[in-house]
């Protein structure tokens, strides 16, 4: 059931990204983004950009915008720690930046090393000037991403959608 839920919201989010004319999807994988990444790779109109570190994505999407394309950056909450200085570029230039962050280190986390960054994610983003929309209800993810995309691309802002670990599900240590 958890798997079905995951796929469902990912499909709706992908539709929203397509509607927002997102043409570059940069990512460092997270289990919660598996379906979205697969859809991005399968779509001929989207350039999937696999990154070695999340900060690269902020710069890639700045370049994309300079060239007339909108993009989205997918990452896990631990990746938020890697993007902080590069956010200064998006902030100073007012590059639109849409980030979809799947949370770790909170609801039912089994790995203590995930907890510090997961707990700091929201305040660190806000301290860096990013507008944060948090969502914990699967049925609200797509509409939240839609609102965030509008605020990013039309409002010219950095916006992060934090998708709660409760939605993404426990990582089952036994498998």
């Amino acid at each position, binding site marked *: 059931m958890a798997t079905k839920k995951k796929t469902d919201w990912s499909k709706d989010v992908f539709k929203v990204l397509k509607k927002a004319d997102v043409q*570059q999807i940069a990512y460092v994988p997270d289990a919660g983004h598996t379906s979205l990444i697969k859809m991005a790779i399968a779509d001929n109109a989207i350039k999937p950009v696999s990154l070695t570190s999340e900060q690269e994505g902020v710069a890639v999407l700045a370049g994309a915008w300079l060239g007339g394309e909108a993009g989205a950056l997918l990452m896990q909450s631990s990746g938020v720690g890697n993007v902080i200085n590069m956010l200064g570029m998006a902030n100073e230039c007012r590059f639109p930046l849409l980030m979809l962050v799947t949370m770790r280190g909170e609801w039912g986390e089994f790995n203590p090393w995930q907890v510090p960054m997961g707990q700091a994610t929201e305040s660190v983003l806000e301290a860096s000037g990013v507008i944060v929309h948090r969502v914990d209800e699967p049925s609200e993810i797509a509409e939240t991403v839609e609102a965030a995309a509008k605020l990013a691309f039309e409002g010219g802002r950095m916006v992060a959608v934090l998708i709660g670990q409760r939605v993404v599900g426990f990582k089952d240590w036994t498998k």
Partner: protein
Amino acid sequence: MAARRKITLDRRKVVGQLLKDRGDLLLVTGLGAPTWDAAAVGDHPNNFYLWGGMGGAVLTGLGLALAQPKRRVLVMTGDGEMLMGVGGLATVAVQKPSNLAICIIDNQRYGETGMQETHTAHGVDLPAMAAGAGFQTALTVYTAKELSAAIPVLHSQPGPVFIDIKVTDSPQSMTLPPRDGPTLKHRFRENLLGQI
């Protein structure tokens, strides 16, 4: 580790030569001296200067090259800036943008912070790292003759290409381009896309 050779090229002259016949080239410069160099040889609306975002120049060029596949994109940055974002070479190599060229103005120093040595001063070989990532063309330039041969590669050889130009660490005058982020973004987009 690369074989050491004598470094004689002057960075400002190198950049002047690189950009002399730029045509409709789109240029992204890394923070510090490469930004001053590009401004000194002639400000241009097709220049996007980074004043921060260290480690982001090559990736900014990548996003731009993917969005504008018919335009040549040149990233000109320093060795310290490249080293901070060196994983980006792997990201670029996987994307294989045929319109992207990367040029390192390599003085082997952190020029803005007191001329401390970077890793390239100790033999770290950026073109070897680019080649290892998968760049088909990854060269080091030491002489005027090698530079003349490298310029057409940067401007027109199918990319991604990576050229490291060793330059002296002699001081240069600082020429500052516009520094306001939205101004730089808007003029670049207006010139390229006809809209901000």
